[in-house]
């Protein structure tokens, strides 16, 4: 250490912050701001001439002097300077609409037609209504469990609207709006929640574990982040098949602490897989706030370390989410690369019906995000100001969607449960002998103790 320091101009260089230059987020066409870089790799084994400083040494940094490592050429410096743990300024958040639904002057975004805007708005409202009524149904004891997307409607609907039906979605669990946008009916939602015969999952999983092969929406599984490395594999398949499509994988801020987050991003980057990693940074992982989850400035900045282009957007601004997802999709498909999108938002709801979030966070804070910062309200102000929407439309929409959801619940409740044989099918493609034996055993037991088993499961 002594030798290294002896000619250093000042120890003040130590621990000096490196200034990270954030890309400008006025993305006319996002791609033009980026120059794809792939470091030229060289063979290991060449002699490294670390003492070849010459006169450039006194500048402390010389672009012309490089060291060849297996990962490529690296410039040398005489300054022992650690990279700062954070940049001086936090990564800005891309926004199109301000809090009152006014377009921010000079903002560049994807134009949204009246038809699309109204479709987006009405689907957000339907999602909100669906959440309200299903949540109430759980509180009444008609459902065993539910989990709402309240406050995150714009991320759900606007990202979905920016995709095509061929894009494949790997959800976490707070993205039913994507499925709603793609045409999953309210009846299909209700059937899953009640685990009846019409549930595609055959009543095997808890409520909200939706999935639809037809709509390219992988079935929800409870373990967090497992879908991220899988998304890289799905995307690699799309790339090999030369499909004009990408994968969109959703996850939350808490998920980024899992090992699979690292696995997923690193694999996608290395395999050059067309995946959009869409993080809903809603501030809370059940009761754990982001301040207890990581020390970084959120999620988007992590992308660069993986060699992944990234953006932070206002998740409560439907136009920003839509524009960013469109741009991300285009880059992912055209350039065969992963993109990381961090959508900043707030989980207005409790984590689930098994949670009471007022025990660990301020009610006033929740209320503010629920009302003043609602993504639905903001988007409504914009469409209303455009003359595309009026109060009477609102009344009709809400009344109609509420009616449809209530009817869906009533219908789903009446449908019988899946048959007993579905307990044993689909473990493998064909039922092995041990399962056949166990099915016989269960059927025999039911005959002797019929009252001990649910009467509504057909045998």
């Amino acid at each position, binding site marked *: 250490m002594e030798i290294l320091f002896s000619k250093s101009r000042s120890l003040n260089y130590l621990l000096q912050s490196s200034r990270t230059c954030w890309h400008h987020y006025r993305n006319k066409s996002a791609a033009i701001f980026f120059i794809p870089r792939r470091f030229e790799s060289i063979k290991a084994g060449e002699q490294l001439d670390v003492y070849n400083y010459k006169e450039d040494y006194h500048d402390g940094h010389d672009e012309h002097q490089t060291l060849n490592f297996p990962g490529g050429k690296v410039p040398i410096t005489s300054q022992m300077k650690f990279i700062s743990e954070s940049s001086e300024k936090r990564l800005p958040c891309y926004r199109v609409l301000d809090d009152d639904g006014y377009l921010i002057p000079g903002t560049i975004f994807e134009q949204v037609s009246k038809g699309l805007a109204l479709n987006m708005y009405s689907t957000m409202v339907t999602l909100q209504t669906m959440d309200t009524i299903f949540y109430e149904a759980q509180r009444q004891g008609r459902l065993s469990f539910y989990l709402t997307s309240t406050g995150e409607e714009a991320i759900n609907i606007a990202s979905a609207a920016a995709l095509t039906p061929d894009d494949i979605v790997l959800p976490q669990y707070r993205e039913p709006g994507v499925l709603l946008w793609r045409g999953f009916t309210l009846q299909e939602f209700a059937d899953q929640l009640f685990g009846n015969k019409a549930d595609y*999952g055959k009543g095997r999983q808890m409520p909200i574990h939706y999935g639809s092969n037809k709509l390219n929406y*992988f079935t929800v599984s409870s373990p967090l982040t497992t879908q*991220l490395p899988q998304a890289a*594999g799905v995307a690699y398949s799309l790339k090999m098949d030369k499909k004009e499509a990408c994968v969109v994988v959703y996850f939350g801020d808490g998920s980024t602490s899992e090992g699979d987050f*690292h696995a997923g991003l690193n*694999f996608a980057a290395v395999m050059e897989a067309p995946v959009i990693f869409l993080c809903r940074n809603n501030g809370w992982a059940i009761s754990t706030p982001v301040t207890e989850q990581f020390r970084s400035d959120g999620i988007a900045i992590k992308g660069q370390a993986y060699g992944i282009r990234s953006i932070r957007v206002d998740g409560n601004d439907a136009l920003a989410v839509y524009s960013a997802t469109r741009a991300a999709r285009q880059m992912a498909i055209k350039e065969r690369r992963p993109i990381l999108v961090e959508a900043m938002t707030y989980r207005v709801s409790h984590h689930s019906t098994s949670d009471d979030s007022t025990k660990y966070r301020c009610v006033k804070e929740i209320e503010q995000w629920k009302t003043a910062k609602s993504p639905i309200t903001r988007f409504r102000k914009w469409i209303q100001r455009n003359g595309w929407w009026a109060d009477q439309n609102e009344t009709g929409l809400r009344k109609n969607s509420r009616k449809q959801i209530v009817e869906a619940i009533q219908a789903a409740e009446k449908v019988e449960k899946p048959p007993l044989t579905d307990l044993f099918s*689909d473990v493998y493609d064909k039922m*092995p*002998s*041990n399962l056949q034996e166990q099915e016989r055993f269960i059927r025999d037991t039911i005959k002797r103790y019929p009252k001990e088993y649910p009467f509504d499961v057909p045998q």
Partner: protein
Amino acid sequence: MASSFRRIGKLASKNQSWRYRGFSSIVETPNKSGDQLSPTKSVNLFSAINQALHIALDSDPRSYVFGEDVGFGGVFRCTTGLADRFGKQRVFNTPLCEQGIVGFAIGLAAMDNRAIAEIQFADYIFPAFDQIVNEAAKFRYRSGNQFNCGGLTIRAPYGAVGHGGHYHSQSPESFFCHVPGIKVVIPRSPKEAKGLLLSSIRDPNPVVFFEPKMLYRMAVEEVPEDDYMLPLSEAEVLREGTDITLVGWGAQLSVMEQACVEAAKEGISCELIDLKTLIPWDKEMVEASVKKTGRLLISHEAPVTGGFGAEISASIVERCFTRLEAPVARVCGLDTPFPLVFEPFYLPTKNKILDAIKSTVNY
């Protein structure tokens, strides 16, 4: 997660320390490939695996082979020549991350591909445990058969090599035998390895395929050069006998075979069964054998407590209680981490098996 000691297997054949196991040529069995006229060639186990991978990639353009160091041929040479022949897009190195390898493979398989993933040593499969147990195994069931990852095959070398210590020797099969939705397959010889691997790759369910790395270079046998498959979930009687049934799999069968030969010299007739597929396993064949012999011995390298031998023992006692002449014997690894210097003490060796055969027969 993996150690820098990964090339251990390459050295296995040059190292003398495993010789105490006294490997002898594997049991002769009739050609079950269905084509008796198929030309054969004498090859070792890693070459047989390599043949199977060549055939799998050649016969299905939607098949992929990948894992750590797979591109240059793999640390055990199982993937030699694949990248040159099929290209780096279908045969490739992955980052050093087992949960990533299996997660990626599940996604690939879910898109109607055959994803053949290599975990460099079975000892390093545990970071991928969640992906295997919670994802791959339940993929079909949880979606009501809307999605499946049946094209997934995870290959991993397992077992003792004489100098592998804790982390290049383990036999973790029983962890996976507790997971409905996957299959666990372990071959005993080159010919079996090729046929069973091709079946595993083409089976419409995810398969964990453990390869006995002790045998990669040591076991040599005539292997049909053609494409052939051997059935999963079907055990095989390697040696017929009347006094006691021995059940095992993988590399342990050669040790058991030697014990059977020794026992025969003392007038004891042993029936030796290769289970091949551990789940779902061929209970019926073991049951029929035990009903004939009245005695059962199970042997595996994994620790005895909670090993798959316990499951076989319990199942056979349930089915054959009145026919059993003696308690079921288990000759297995000790309940210690797999030790380096003490490996000869740890392993279920020939004489331990021979003693157990004699005490069971003379019970």
